[in-house]
């Protein structure tokens, strides 16, 4: 039987852990709300860009743009988006597992990691990582998406890669997130029927506009500028989704941890009281026994 002092110490340490998990849960909940708000406010821009691109694509039948050009696929690269921090339930391992499955049997596939946990996971397993990005997994800004898009574009045009995929976690609710693989380059121009499949940006699909647009300066020039923006919004949506998933996952995990620690505390307290009671009873019997002996 453990000493009562030892049990008291354990109760205290479990309670300390509970404080931390509770705080983390609350922080994650607050940030999740912010991430969701960010997702909502990023929606109009992404939708409009999609719509414009679909319009240009409808006018320009022969679209020529280096980012739209599919070529024979030799070098594939995967961008794996995970978290910088752990303690987010199975969030990181789910993304990593999907990525590992996707990379299996593709000797020429390369890897770019987003988030510290992803770098650690894949470098530990001796994967070749060509680039690793960190420190914005929880709160991605549009600028982060721009930078990623820029490096993707440069490498794609230089012919280093023939296909670029992004692996991230699609956010559905704090309890449900599913990791998915999305091909971002070569860009496939959106069609009206398939509107809003990317990320948190989901919509019922917009009606096809019957009027033809005029373009200034011209459809080709517009396209040249529009395609990179479109790519940015795709990546931004992926980053926001990943962030929301991370926070949702962490919130759920920490909430469960807080509940569990409450349970452990209750059990330990009961045990502690029993031990204490037993000690008191034993002492009384000893005293009574001693008194009996003196008679």
């Amino acid at each position, binding site marked *: 039987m453990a000493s009562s002092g030892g049990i008291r110490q354990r109760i205290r340490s479990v309670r300390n852990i509970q404080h931390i998990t509770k705080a983390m849960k609350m922080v994650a909940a607050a940030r999740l709300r912010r991430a969701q708000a*960010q997702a909502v*406010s*990023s929606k*109009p*821009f*992404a939708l*409009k*860009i999609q*719509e*414009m691109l679909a*319009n*240009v694509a409808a006018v320009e039948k022969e679209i020529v743009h280096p980012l739209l050009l599919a070529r024979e696929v030799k070098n594939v690269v995967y961008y794996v988006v995970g978290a910088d921090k752990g303690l987010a339930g199975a969030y990181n391992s789910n993304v990593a597992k999907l990525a590992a499955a996707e990379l299996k049997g593709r000797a020429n596939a390369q890897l770019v990691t987003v988030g510290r946990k992803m770098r650690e996971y894949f470098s530990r397993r001796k994967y070749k990582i060509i680039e690793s990005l960190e420190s914005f997994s929880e709160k991605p*800004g*549009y600028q982060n*998406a*721009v930078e990623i898009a820029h490096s993707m574009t440069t490498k794609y045009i230089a012919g280093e890669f023939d296909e670029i995929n992004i692996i991230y976690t699609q956010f559905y609710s704090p309890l449900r997130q599913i990791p998915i693989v999305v091909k971002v380059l070569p860009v496939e121009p959106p069609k009206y029927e398939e509107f809003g499949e990317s990320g948190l940006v989901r919509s019922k699909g917009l009606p096809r*506009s019957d*009027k*033809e*647009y*005029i*373009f*200034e*300066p011209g459809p080709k*020039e*517009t396209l040249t*500028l*529009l395609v990179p*923006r479109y790519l*940015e*919004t795709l990546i*931004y949506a992926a980053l926001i989704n990943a962030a929301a998933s991370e926070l949702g996952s962490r919130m759920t995990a920490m909430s469960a941890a807080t509940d569990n620690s409450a349970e452990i505390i209750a059990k330990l307290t009961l045990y502690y009281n029993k031990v204490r009671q037993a000690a008191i009873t034993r002492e009384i019997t000893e005293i009574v026994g001693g008194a009996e002996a003196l008679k």
Partner: protein
Amino acid sequence: MADRLQVDIITPDSMVLSGKYNMVVVRSVEGELGILAGHIPIIVTLSEWPVKLKNEDGTVTYVSVSGGFMEVRNNQVSILATAAEMPADIDAKRARAAKKRAEKRLLAKGEYDHARAQVALKRAAGRIKTVELSASKTR
């Protein structure tokens, strides 16, 4: 009364402005362009220059826009830009400092990324212009 234009200025993170205006004047890469109600559908590539919005009472609102696109359809004007600010939200001091820094970087050869400095300079100039224009109108 003639129809008015519903103008939305949208950035990746927010809706900067949404309201009804009589006229929109933008600077495209090919020159200035005024949009009135009833304009045919058009998609315009913008340069870094303040967008001018005419209110019903004749006053003018300027909004700083960092390039992007404008789409007009059915009296609905959507301006998409990676960054856009109302004049009140612009830190004129910071914009001037950014302009000076960019100019310096353009002069210092080789040390900095020229393309980036060029973009920074344009952005700062657009913001400063926005502040100046709106200041001169309120007087």
